[in-house]
């Protein structure tokens, strides 16, 4: 419940929108002074003097609660475990955690290992080839007195 109202107080306050105190009393099977008392206490707890203001406040709180429910899958994150929150919430920008199956994770690690190895090998090969070309051009232009062998160029 969004406010500190009791269920009876909230029910009486909501019914005042459409019914008179007498009609509410008849519907709930209580006396009219009891209905008045519930409504009055509800107004006091919400910090307003008029019923209409209390109703408007209640509707605002309902709207806030609906918005919270839409954005938060877990209603009370303080009491919940952190890992449970992490898996229960969808995360920002459509983030999804990796699958929980250990076999799938190991498979993913293997794939990433191969991809990393290929990338690093390609990168180092490209750099080595470029260095070799630079040295061959420098040697052709005569800027280097003794052109290094390809193996020396790679090690540099």
């Amino acid at each position, binding site marked *: 419940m969004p406010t500190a109202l009791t269920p009876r107080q909230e029910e009486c306050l909501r019914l005042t929108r459409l019914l008179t105190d007498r009609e509410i009393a008849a519907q709930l099977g209580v006396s009219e002074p009891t209905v008045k008392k519930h409504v009055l206490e509800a107004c006091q707890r919400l910090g307003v003097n008029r019923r209409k203001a209390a109703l408007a406040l209640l509707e605002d709180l309902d709207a806030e609660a609906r918005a919270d429910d839409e954005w938060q899958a877990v209603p009370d994150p303080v009491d919940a475990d952190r890992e449970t929150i*992490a898996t229960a*919430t969808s*995360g920002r920008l459509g983030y999804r955690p990796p699958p929980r199956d250990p076999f799938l994770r190991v498979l993913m690690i293997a794939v990433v290992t191969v991809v990393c190895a290929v990338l690093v090998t390609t990168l180092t090969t490209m750099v080595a080839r470029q260095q070799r070309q630079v040295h061959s051009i420098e040697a052709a232009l005569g800027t280097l007195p003794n052109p290094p062998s390809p193996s020396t160029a790679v090690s540099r």
Partner: protein
Amino acid sequence: MIFAIGWLKGGHVERQAVLALLLAYVTALFLHDLERTTHQFAVMIADGVLLIVLVWMALRHDRWWLLVAVACQVLTMIAHGALWLDPDIGLRSNVVTRWLFGLILLYALAAGVGERWLAGEPAASPGLQPLRAKTG
């Protein structure tokens, strides 16, 4: 700097990784100074222990970056193994290769901070909690 970011802005998983990596680096540094042989057996053992820790974390925690970190560490171990299998491989190129994989691992840790944010988890640092309470 990446360690500081991981410690301050990361979640509990990133903090564990920062501790493990720091420990591994300091150990490797000492072992590297002590051991002057070509094969660097002790450094390989330290890297192997780090790999086990990272694999355990990758299977226990829900983080994509840990999968990349494990992949880099596996490649580091392969580089160690290559030095044993092929003695013609120069120690310098081997160390550079391992340094490269270590660098990718560090960037994976930095990406882990972003992943923590994407996952919607709060940072582990208690110093950031009051700030978030004020702004939130």
